[in-house]
């Protein structure tokens, strides 16, 4: 970094600091959420009902169109060839045989690819969505083992796949850094996240730790993980003159449209991205090179292109979670009260992205301590850019933090549940801001009671035949986020139906269902009078389905649009209405119309207002307020996790026997879809705990298990009965009182399992996954 850039960053940091302080100190009423969302008080509406997913009938009939199912006239199929070295340049690339193969339309390489810009890397601008910022097929340079070096277009997928096998490449290799251990020996650098170092200290943690009566200190490691959504990445792409149409599998349609515009030198309005259904996202379904290559090849061929990655293609092209090496030190007094928490360590990342896995995040808010020190260091490797994967930071950070707390509880002889409750902070541990709503202690008590925690025995004392049985617990945590850019359109028609449009996403978690419920309550309609439209970049809003923030973002956007709608309707209602003379703040929605808040008899239906004013419909758009609430309050979700496991004394195999998650995530909008979200997250956490590991061969940077046969995720038999309960206490500062629940499920699970393994066997495993060789 140059001195000028450093200075710029420092100034930006200073301004941000002043702004943050001002927002912290401002009166509550100035903040979004300062006046709680009126829906929080609604008791008997659609919110909170276990509504089955509205897309289920389509999906079971095969009628839900996914990205690789759009049929376009004249469409051709793409297949990719991947590099087999980590760094260097392509020396020879013989495509003649492939070009001559049956059905082949063309072979695109760096020699004939259209000129285009690199992807704007995610978070580098409001709508930047790229996974890396490397030139895409613009030169002969290789940056990672698995980089695409050729695209074959053919009349069928089989012809394209076959032709790829006929391409011959050779490389001039440069010395590559592909070993974490080697890179670390050369020294680490501070991890930067959006230009800010992932480093903070309160008090003097090292000294306090040294002086503490009770101490634990250990190193915990977690391996690389790959994205394995059931739907591999795909896009169906077409050019219509200078307009680009992309049917994508996306959790970021607005970001993708804007970024593709930048890459191809057209405006974002010329790019239309749709994504009606997504077969799982988890942070992996943003913009990667395949959409860009598909669009470039479509341009070159003058025909629409379908580019659907093979499972191997996902491993070669789509980043996953990077490995972490974490040091966790906790100093406490004899009663267990924390004096110092130090959470530091090193992760691997690349120069072409900006994602140092922020494992310190859970430690920023979970426990109180007068002295806290957090630090993420990085080394740079020549590898595929790593990326966001369900609860980046928290998923692996909680493994270290929550294991260390268990170790401290054991050494002090304190019940680990009580130790956690004892160390609950009264305000945000780092920022000192008040909590918006924090009921983790209730969640612990309810969970412990339901699970039967009090029956816990000493380590290594419970057996069932060959099996050693143990129970363990851990805290789950994830922040409430809301990103800027939310906006929505509401169209109300004379027949009393409403359509909400927002560029949000349905990745299988039930977004459309839950927000149909919310909109119905907000407009005083029944669910069948509401259409929730999403997944289209032409709709309003920049709404990332990420950071568990989509629910809040949609909620705040609809609140804003609704406000405009009321204003518009009052104007149309005019002076001949029972609503005459009322201001927007005096009315609310009731029974398919508007009513005075404190006098429901002053009511007029939407149908009546529109009929009287001679309108077919009224359409309004609103933009969500800036998300200042997260700076004014400390807003986090929590969970108390309990599990029972068996470790086979002969083989070391660990099997989870039962699991319970007790969550405090604000109000639950739809218990049915929410329970699925929690369970799915917990199952993904069991994979993280017991088996998931990308085999990255550090001799050459090649992923050696790019297949669901060899990269293990839990099978049905690995999944025990999972009980999920929640406090259901609305967060007064969040739209609908709800904090997002997409990611918290995976957090804490690794530690809960490892702590149960300790209880079963007396063995402490600090290196994930917990494979049998570590327990023999």
């Amino acid at each position: 970094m140059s001195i000028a850039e450093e200075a710029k960053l420092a100034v930006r940091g200073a301004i941000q600091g002043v702004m943050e302080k001002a927002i912290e100190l401002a009166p509550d009423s100035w903040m979004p959420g300062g006046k709680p969302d009126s829906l929080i008080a609604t008791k008997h509406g659609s919110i909170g009902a276990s509504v089955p997913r509205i897309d289920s009938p389509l999906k079971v009939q095969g009628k839900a169109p996914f990205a690789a199912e759009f049929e376009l006239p004249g469409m051709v199929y793409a297949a990719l060839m991947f590099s087999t070295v980590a760094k260097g340049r392509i020396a020879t690339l013989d495509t003649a045989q492939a070009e001559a193969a049956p059905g082949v339309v063309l072979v695109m390489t760096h020699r004939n690819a259209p000129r285009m810009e690199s992807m704007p890397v995610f978070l580098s601008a409001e709508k930047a969505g790229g996974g890396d910022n490397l030139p895409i097929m613009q030169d002969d340079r290789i940056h990672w083992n698995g980089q695409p070096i050729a695209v074959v277009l053919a009349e069928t997928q089989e012809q394209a796949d076959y032709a790829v096998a006929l391409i011959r490449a050779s490389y001039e290799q440069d010395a590559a850094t592909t070993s974490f251990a080697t890179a670390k020996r050369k020294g680490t650098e501070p991890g930067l996240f959006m230009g800010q170092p992932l480093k903070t200290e309160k008090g003097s943690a090292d000294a306090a730790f040294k002086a503490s009566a009770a101490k634990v200190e250990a190193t915990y490691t977690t391996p690389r993980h790959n994205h394995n959504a059931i739907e591999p990445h795909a896009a169906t792409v077409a050019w219509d003159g200078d307009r680009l149409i992309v049917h994508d599998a996306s959790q970021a349609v607005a970001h993708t449209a804007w970024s593709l515009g930048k890459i191809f030198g057209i405006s974002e309005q010329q790019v239309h991205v749709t994504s009606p259904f997504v077969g799982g996202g988890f942070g992996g379904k943003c913009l990667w090179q395949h959409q860009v290559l598909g669009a470039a090849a479509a341009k070159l061929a003058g025909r629409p292109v379908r580019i659907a990655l093979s499972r191997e293609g996902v491993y070669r092209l789509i980043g996953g979670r990077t490995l972490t090496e974490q040091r966790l030190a906790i100093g406490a007094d004899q009663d267990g009260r924390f004096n110092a928490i130090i959470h530091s360590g090193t992760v691997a990342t690349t120069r072409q992205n900006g994602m140092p896995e922020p494992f310190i995040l859970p430690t920023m808010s979970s426990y109180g301590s007068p002295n806290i020190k957090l630090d993420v260091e990085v080394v740079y490797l020549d590898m595929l850019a790593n990326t966001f994967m369900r609860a980046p930071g928290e998923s692996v950070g909680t493994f270290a933090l929550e294991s260390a707390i268990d170790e401290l509880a054991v050494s002090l002889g304190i019940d680990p549940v009580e130790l956690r409750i004892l160390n609950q902070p009264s305000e945000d541990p780092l920022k000192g801001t008040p909590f918006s709503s924090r009921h983790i202690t209730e969640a612990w008590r309810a969970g412990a009671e339901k699970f039967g925690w009090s029956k816990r025995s000493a380590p290594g004392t419970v057996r069932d035949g060959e099996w050693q049985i143990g129970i363990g617990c851990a805290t789950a945590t994830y922040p409430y986020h809301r990103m800027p850019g939310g906006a929505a359109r509401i169209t109300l028609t004379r027949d009393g139906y409403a359509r909400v449009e927002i560029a949000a996403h349905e990745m299988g978690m039930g977004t459309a269902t839950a927000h149909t419920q919310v909109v119905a309550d907000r407009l005083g309609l029944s669910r069948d009078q509401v259409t929730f439209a999403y997944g289209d970049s032409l709709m309003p809003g920049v709404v990332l389905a990420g950071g568990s923030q989509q629910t809040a973002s949609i909620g705040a956007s609809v609140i804003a649009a609704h406000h405009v709608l009321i204003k518009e309707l009052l104007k149309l209602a005019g002076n001949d209405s029972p609503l005459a003379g009322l201001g927007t703040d005096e009315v609310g929605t009731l029974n398919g119309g508007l009513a005075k808040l404190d006098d429901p008899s002053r009511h007029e239906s939407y149908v009546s207002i529109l009929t009287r004013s001679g309108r077919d419909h009224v359409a309004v758009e609103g933009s969500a307020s800036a998300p200042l609430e997260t700076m004014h309050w400390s807003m986090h979700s929590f969970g108390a996790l309990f599990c029972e496991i068996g470790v086979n004394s002969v083989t070391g195999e660990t099997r989870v026997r039962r699991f319970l998650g007790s969550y405090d995530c604000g109000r639950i909008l739809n218990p049915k879809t929410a329970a699925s979200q929690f369970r799915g997250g917990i199952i993904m956490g069991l994979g993280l705990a017991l088996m998931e590991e990308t085999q990255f061969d550090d001799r050459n940077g090649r992923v050696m298990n790019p297949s669901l046969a060899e990269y293990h995720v839990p099978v049905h038999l690995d999944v025990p009965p999972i009980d999920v309960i929640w406090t259901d206490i609305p967060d007064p500062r969040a739209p609908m009182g709800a904090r997002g629940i997409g990611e918290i499920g995976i957090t804490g699970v690794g530690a809960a399992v490892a702590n149960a393994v300790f209880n079963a066997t007396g063995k402490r495993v600090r290196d994930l996954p917990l494979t049998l060789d570590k327990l023999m």
Partner: protein
Amino acid sequence: MTPFDYSRASDVADALRMGAGVQAKFLGGGTNLVDLMRETIERPAALVDITGLPAEITERDDGGLVIGAAVRNTALAEHRTVRTRYPVLSRAILAGASAQIRNMATVGGNLLQRTRCSYFYDDAGSRCNKRQPGQGCDAIDGFNRNHAILGASEACVATHPSDMCVALAALDAVVHLEGRGGARTLPLVELHRLPGDRPDLETALQPGELITAIELPAQPIAARSTYRKVRDRSSYAFALVSVAAALELDGDTVKDVRVALGGVAHKPWRALEAEQALRGGKVSEAAFRAAAEAELAHAVPLSCNTFKIELAKRTITAVLGELAGAAR
């Protein structure tokens, strides 16, 4: 996938004629071969579909079984006689793959499935002596957690992935073959080769030779037999170590015993040394452990699989203990 010719044989003679070409392969359920063709590791010029050949399980007068090569894995695992008289075989099959794969896979094809070594599978980016003799082996210093501890060579450390074959090895199964030179039989334990310096040669089959049936001799001992598979998840994972065993006691004395191991070698590994150590001796956990020690005495670990040696010893001991417990 490389283009190929496809034909369907109606009988053995038909199959042998169609399969006589140098680049021809017989196609059973295709659960492994088609995968390997998709990865362009297998590139046959012709496939001869033999799923129309006899798929019967015949009980012989002496109590043995003859299993047609085209019998599906599921049919064999669920066969009443197999479940009662050869439980080890039924359990081994059910421990493998998934229900959908077992419904497709044939018995003959299961014998010929190829290793899951990830370097063998990485045609584009890794060296493998099995794929290309003399190229070198990237597994020896790479990810070799699933690899061999017995009978490996400097050229190859891959393992045979079948569960069913481990049970067949314990049961003294005999493979029936037909080729241009006529019909012959081969003990199952002689069908698969150790890698030596030619890991590309995996079996004793002659070019164009067809597996027509598997014969299980009458084995009263097999009525008390079982299979235990140790792996990294509960299902749909290849064995780190598996043990097929049968035990016959005379009071406290081991009258007869069969032990075979999976996941440890280039072929299903019949544990003859362990059997010899046990036969005629007294039943005890110590004796089982000693037998396991004897079998694994020659084991050589790789960088990532040292644990397999102890795991194999423990699993042998536990399985024999379980059978002995059931016998008394």
